């Protein structure tokens, strides 16, 4: 059974101007659809990756998964329980301690005024759990030393901080960790350390990851399944090999083509056309159609549904 089941998930932000401006300028309310009708499932002990360009709704989905944001519609079920509609406080609490998150910016993720020990044990301490020696144990598990528990975050480098964040995430012994761009602020050499650590911990603790990233190489390296987002919509979902070898959606193809390659010496690519449209007034039909090299009439009119093709899911009228 899937650990995470996301159904028809949408999130709309109200970005209207103040009331008075709307009245005077005769505008209606403006809504930004950050996430629109997204469906996916995450198997236990697997890594599910979400990729997409900036503003495609990755973080918004991540926050809805962990309950930091409420969905506008649709549901997120973790272990069969929907945090938004569940009323049993005990169940909610149980699920909450089952989910953790690692953020992009290791510098902003740690309260600079707290000692590392207090930071790490906070998830447990705030629930009244036993914290004796816990921080030290976790620090060793993430490859730091016991002495570090008494230090303050500013005494650590970015990679070390990310390890502390991981230690904090592990403190409440979660099943699911949502990682929002965990390495994009790190240098390659440190990124490798963190990615390796994440893989090790996954095996050791039987963790499930939802990995959010815009870096295709990282995603390919880590994920068991990849979902590609464009303008808040899931446009394609497949295993790494399928996705990278035979991308079905023109956007995925464009993305793969445009991404710089380590062996692409002097590669002359035709750079993709245009930029991501304004999410407040997204294009009709398939949101990608204005930039799509193969777009046809139907793409303008009708929003493509997710279809399964050869074990991949793709939302494109023309994909086959």
């Amino acid at each position, binding site marked *: 059974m899937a650990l995470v089941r996301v159904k028809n998930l949408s999130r709309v932000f109200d970005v209207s101007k103040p009331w008075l401006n709307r009245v005077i300028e005769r505008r209606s309310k403006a809504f930004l659809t950050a996430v629109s009708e997204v469906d996916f499932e995450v198997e236990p002990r697997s890594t599910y990756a979400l990729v997409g*360009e*900036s503003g495609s709704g990755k973080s918004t989905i991540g926050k809805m998964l962990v309950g930091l944001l409420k969905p506008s519609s649709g549901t997120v079920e973790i272990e069969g329980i929907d945090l938004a509609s569940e009323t049993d406080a005990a169940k909610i609490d149980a699920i909450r301690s089952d989910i953790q998150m690692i953020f992009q910016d290791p510098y902003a993720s740690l309260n600079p005024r707290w000692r590392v020990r207090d930071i790490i044990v906070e998830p447990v301490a705030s629930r009244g759990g036993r914290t004796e020696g816990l921080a030290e144990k976790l620090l060793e598990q993430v490859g730091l030393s016991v002495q570090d528990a008494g230090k303050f975050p500013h005494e650590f*480098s*970015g*990679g*070390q901080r990310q390890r502390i964040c991981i230690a904090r995430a592990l403190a409440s012994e979660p099943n699911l960790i949502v990682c929002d761009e965990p390495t994009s602020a790190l*240098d*390659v*050499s*440190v*990124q*490798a*350390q963190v*990615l*390796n650590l994440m*893989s090790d911990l996954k095996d050791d603790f039987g963790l499930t990851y939802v990995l959010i990233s*815009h870096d*295709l*190489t*990282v995603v*390919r*390296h*880590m994920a068991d399944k990849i979902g590609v987002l464009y303008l808040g919509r899931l446009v394609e979902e497949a295993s790494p090999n399928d996705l*990278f070898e035979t991308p079905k959606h023109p956007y995925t193809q*464009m*993305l793969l083509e*445009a*991404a*710089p*390659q*380590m*062996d*692409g*010496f*002097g*590669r002359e*690519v035709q*750079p*993709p056309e245009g*930029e*991501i449209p304004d999410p407040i007034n997204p294009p009709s039909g398939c949101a990608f159609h204005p930039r799509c090299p193969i777009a046809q009439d139907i793409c303008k009119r009708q929003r493509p549904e997710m279809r399964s093709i050869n074990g991949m899911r793709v939302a494109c009228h023309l994909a086959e």
Partner: protein
Amino acid sequence: MADPVLSIRDLSVEIPTRHGIVRPVDGVSYDIQAGEILGIVGESGAGKSMAGNAVIGLLNPPAHISKGEIWLNGQRIDHLKGDAMRRLRGKEIGMVFQDPLTSLNPLLRIGDQLTETMLTHLPISRAEAEKRAVAALEEVGIPGAAERVNSYPHEFSGGMRQRVVIALALCAEPSLVIADEPTTALDVSVQAQIIALLRRLCRDRGTAVMLITHDMGVIAEATDRVAVMYAGRLAELGPVRDVLTHPQHPYTHGLMASTPLASQGKRRLHQIPGAMPRLDAVPDGCAFNPRCPHATDKCRQAPVPRVSNGQAACWYPLVDEKVI
């Protein structure tokens, strides 16, 4: 070979700090030819930006050039002061910064920022400058340039703004462009557009480009030669294909190996232990020695050999280590 556009000789930059003198650029030398793109790559804090700022004379005090020479088109410029240096900026050296959102003055129209730059450097009339401003915007691929000159920066998207910044850097036709992480803040698709633009300009105008980035992929695709920096020093310098496919310096090698590559599947990533030292605690000898698997006592004591084109700053350069 023709004289290089830019030639840096044994350049050091020093910053006096609380913990002693920090040397974010330490004995760096390289040349850039006309029409060539030199990539500068390295981890955050390796001194890439400092080197670029030193060239254009925009080091923030107390940082200053402590040693070495910088030659631009046969003129020595590292000791130029005040107005003399200012005349070179924009005119001879164009600069593109990382963040297009903050590089443009929010209160001035794009066109005004362009004409003001041209009028400062070129002996042309205002009308002429305005005409050229439109042309400059067209050249970097801004649609509807004639109207867009009257727009304010906030009316552009990120990618467009970076094009404007490039247009500004190029509008006085400098012979050298320093681009400090020009694409880091941008999406891949836009990044590809900007890189293509830079390459085209370099090719069409014969401009020399110094492209600072930490993205190996960008280096591979965009540059002709690459200089790898580590802890303020040059680790390796050479044609991009040689350096990336056959790195001689263990650091370059480690860097390449720790990047997840499609070809290598899901195996454990190669990992360089530790992290780049803080610049106030660079170890003696080779700066990389504590992290290097091959380090000997010699690496820990003797200063490393000098880098020359195609050769690494290492006592024990790797041979035949193919990475890609």
